[in-house]
């Protein structure tokens, strides 16, 4: 891939909305389009040990975007961090663009999985965590991002109920909660993980320091979930 001047320059958080605008032709985004933006930025900027030149390194951290719907924030962060050229963004969704409305790991550099159908990322993350452990790779951490309504899918609950009792410590989940589930109870998200033996934290999904603290909190012997609350989708 040719690293152009645009791609090569260092982008910061302040550039993300402009990068998203390259995909949508719009500098303004409703909260739903950016519900994952701060979570993704803090993860890629400060937490995940992965860089474009380490995309194939077995020791890298893995981030699996399960909530593949509305991936503009994800592509913007990947572009800002140099995984993919900024020049790809304006052709978002075009026939021969690598960037679809749901990401495809076979097309997007840095994408660990293809997603779009809900409820696949967490079970695959469990397998990834098990595979690393089986190979004696105890350094890499596995992260997956799901949405609060995505938790409706039963496949997540198969994964949650297995990962807790088996103490899958290298597994991390962040649930971006924009109150989009039709049927939910207050506090229900963290409670479901905690009932299965996970370490859990709930924070303001727009507060970078709070996110960082929750992402890096120790959780010996247990998988860890961070519920990142953002403004309701339909507010």
């Amino acid at each position, binding site marked *: 891939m040719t690293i152009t001047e645009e791609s090569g320059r260092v982008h910061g958080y302040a550039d993300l909305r402009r990068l998203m605008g390259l995909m949508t032709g719009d500098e303004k985004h409703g909260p739903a389009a950016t519900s994952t933006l701060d979570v993704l930025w803090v993860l890629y900027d400060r937490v995940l040990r992965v860089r474009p030149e380490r995309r194939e390194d077995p020791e890298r951290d893995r981030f699996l975007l399960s909530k593949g719907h509305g991936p503009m924030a994800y592509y913007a962060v990947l572009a800002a961090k140099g995984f993919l050229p900024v020049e790809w963004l304006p052709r978002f969704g075009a026939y021969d663009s690598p960037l679809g409305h749901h990401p495809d790991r076979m097309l997007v550099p840095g994408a660990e999985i293809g997603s779009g159908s809900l409820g696949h990322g*967490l079970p695959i993350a469990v397998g990834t965590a098990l595979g690393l452990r089986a190979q004696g790779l105890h350094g890499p951490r596995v992260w997956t991002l799901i949405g609060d309504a995505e938790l409706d899918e039963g496949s997540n609950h198969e994964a949650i109920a297995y990962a807790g009792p088996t103490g899958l410590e290298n597994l991390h989940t962040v649930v971006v909660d924009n109150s989009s589930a039709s049927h939910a109870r207050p506090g229900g998200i963290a409670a479901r993980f905690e009932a299965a033996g996970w370490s859990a934290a709930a924070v303001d999904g727009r507060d970078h320091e709070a996110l960082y603290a929750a992402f890096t909190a120790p959780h010996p012997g247990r998988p860890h979930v961070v519920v990142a609350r953002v403004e309701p989708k339909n507010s």
Partner: protein
Amino acid sequence: MDTMRDRLAPTVSRLLDEDPRVAVVLAEIGKDGFAEALRRHPGRVLNVGIREQLLVGVGAGLALTGMRPVLHTFASFLVERPFEQVKLDLGHQGVGAVLVSAAASYDWPAGGYTHMAPGDVALLDTLDGWTVHVPGHPDEAETLLRHAVAAGDDKVYVRLSTQSNAQARPVDGQGFRPVREGRSAVVVAVGPLLEPVLAATEGLDVTVLYATTVRPFDAAALRRATAAARADVVLVEPYLAGTSVGAANDALADVPHRVLGLGVGRAELRRYGTVAEHTAAHGLDARSLRERISGFLGGGTAA
């Protein structure tokens, strides 16, 4: 005689010893056979509980880290229940796994329709790039399991059954093999239905091809056989009738031909009983097969 499934745990346990890439994922069913392997390889023998979506998702995750996962449960819970995981977590992610099923089309007739999966191969046919092995004998199952695990990162389905031929034949994990030569038609017998087909076609002037690897479909072998005999083809499959009719038609697209697809009927029988009773009900016993094959060939083709 032991069953194909009796060979699964010993064969895969040896592969676990031999190859550090190999991992086994179970969903409770079949875990007892792997107790010793679990002690030796606790990180690579995984039982996820009664969670079949997770079974396939975990297999995909293991494959993404470079491992060679072997997933096992009954066919209905391995292919049908988590079909979207098979489609997306393996195919769409570009990773492979070995799926080994048991119970086949009606291995447990008293268990009823919930434990029958005659449509498994037809379902996999909607996806790209699957190899499908249907052994006809426990020895063949062992060989084909080894081929499946050794097949790089391919997507491979191995369909084990309690139904079996009395005698094992050589299998190579690839094409169809002629076991009888004739001139009036070609009968393709899949896996455990070989011996019923041989009995049914006794004295008929037909070629019998034995198929244990049915996907990819061995079009070249069928073309060779039909070039030497007539292009009248009967497919006898131990799963949904007609599953391979399209593949046979494609193989013979440029020559006039006829194809009859025999196999397990689509209609739910709502009967229990024995395997033999279900085989007869689906017209797959030797006497019914002879009648149906002779009828297709025009009646009096007996030599």
